[in-house]
């Protein structure tokens, strides 16, 4: 088990470094949504980089972010996801043709259910669509842990900043 504490610290440090870029580059005031996206993006990237690119989802996340450049819209990210969806659609066509011929047994149904869910899980994971079954479980494990750490750190920051503005409610 990793050292949770150091992971959180590293994440926080990287996140703040990433956020500083926004304050340095743009002197104008960003809109609310832009700020939110900036915060989230830098948080995601910081989280992904603390994993030292050892996991697939972290690589995919960083790759997605870098492909979308510094734009907070991430439109090119949508393009790549669209092409991925096309790939999935092409694949999805096949099972229907096949299942008509197969007889409906309990194991088949169960298998199909599981397939559906693994597909859904893959969609959730960044870079998870083209991933292998065995690795999927590992990646999910890792991703969940990192998400949790990220959420904790963010929550600390939120409460701290709220308390600064309004110390004694």
């Amino acid at each position, binding site marked *: 088990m990793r050292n949770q504490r150091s992971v*959180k*610290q*590293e994440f*926080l*440090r990287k996140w703040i470094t990433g*956020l500083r870029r926004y*304050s340095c580059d743009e002197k104008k005031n*960003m809109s609310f949504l832009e*700020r939110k*996206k*900036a*915060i*989230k993006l830098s948080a*995601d990237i910081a989280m992904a980089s603390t994993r030292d690119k050892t996991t697939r989802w972290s*690589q*995919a996340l960083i*790759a997605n972010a*870098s*492909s979308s450049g510094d734009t907070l819209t991430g439109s090119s990210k949508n393009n*790549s996801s669209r*092409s*991925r969806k096309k*790939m999935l659609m092409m694949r999805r066509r*096949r*099972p229907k043709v*096949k299942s008509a011929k197969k007889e409906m*047994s309990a*194991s088949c149904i*169960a*298998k199909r*259910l*599981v*397939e559906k*869910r*693994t597909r*859904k899980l893959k969609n959730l994971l960044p870079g998870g669509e083209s*991933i*292998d*079954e*065995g*690795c999927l479980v590992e990646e*999910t*494990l890792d991703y*969940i842990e990192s*998400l*949790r750490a*990220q*959420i904790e750190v*963010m*929550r*600390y*920051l*939120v*409460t*701290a*900043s*709220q308390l*600064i*503005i309004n*110390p004694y409610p």
Partner: protein
Amino acid sequence: MEHAALDSIQFNEQIQGLMAPAPESTNSFTALLELPPPQAVKLLHSPDKAPTGSEKPPCHASILKPYPSIMSIIDGTRKLTFPSNTALIERAARFSVFAGEGPLAPPVAEVKNEPPETDSNPSSTQCDPAVENKGAKRKEREKKVKARSKKSKSVAAAESSGDGEKLPYVHVRVRRGQATDSHSLAERVNARREKINARMKLLQELVPGCNKISGTALVLDEIINHVQSLQRQVEFLSMKLAAVNPRIHFNLDSIMPNEGASLMDSSIPNMVSPLMWPEIPNNGNREQYQQPWQFDAFQQPVWGREEENTNFMTPENSMLSYDSSANSGIAAVFALMKITNKSGRGC
């Protein structure tokens, strides 16, 4: 012609499926899932019957010409290398007409001489850099794996054992010379499945409320819900942060080199404080935060014992002993954090 096109599409999907898995893993069930077993085996073993003059081999040759590395899969003599998926799709999409371009043999012969990686790299130059990044990273990993020469062979084993099992088809790589022993293959498959089951158990423990559920589908449901909720929380928290801070503001000089007890711990307060001071000037802070310090000092012995949530906030001693102006505010911030933490746990 239609038949050929359909076959080529099937083959495309199979290529995608074969390309999809990471090199260190040995299952590509999704691709082979889509094909009926006999056809899959047939497709994968087609080079053995190479120049039959039928439509299939030439079609595949034509598709695969730009991807000799994939041809090698059929050949079975070389490991898979994976150019990026999207590149393949673009290329394959362009191959709408399949003219018989000769037997399979010559391209296969070329394959053996070409290093697959350098070849697939230029072929994927048309993709956007991000995808190529992914491909590059994958190739780096593959290079390590490739060091041990393995014979690539696919087995379309129709396993229908167990309820809710996920792997009807298993793509297994066999060492050169090792028998296509059904026994050893089955062993390998079982070992694989054991590994996956063990990881699933870990996942079940991690996700709250999954322990009591039995059945893969429901457990997966829970996991999906959990991941979704975590992602939504991240979104929500980032929104909150954006709302709380009118603008992202940082004091560069507050970020000081580490002086305190440990490397990490002292840098954290420095990092936190700039973010926390959106518009209030530094002077104003100090007066406000005198009291939290005393508060904090009072509760310090109690907090010192607790480790779980105050993971990166335990060296409060070192923080409170700073006297520089920036650090006083920083310590205050951390004191506040601890207070909220404390109250959160209902003490």
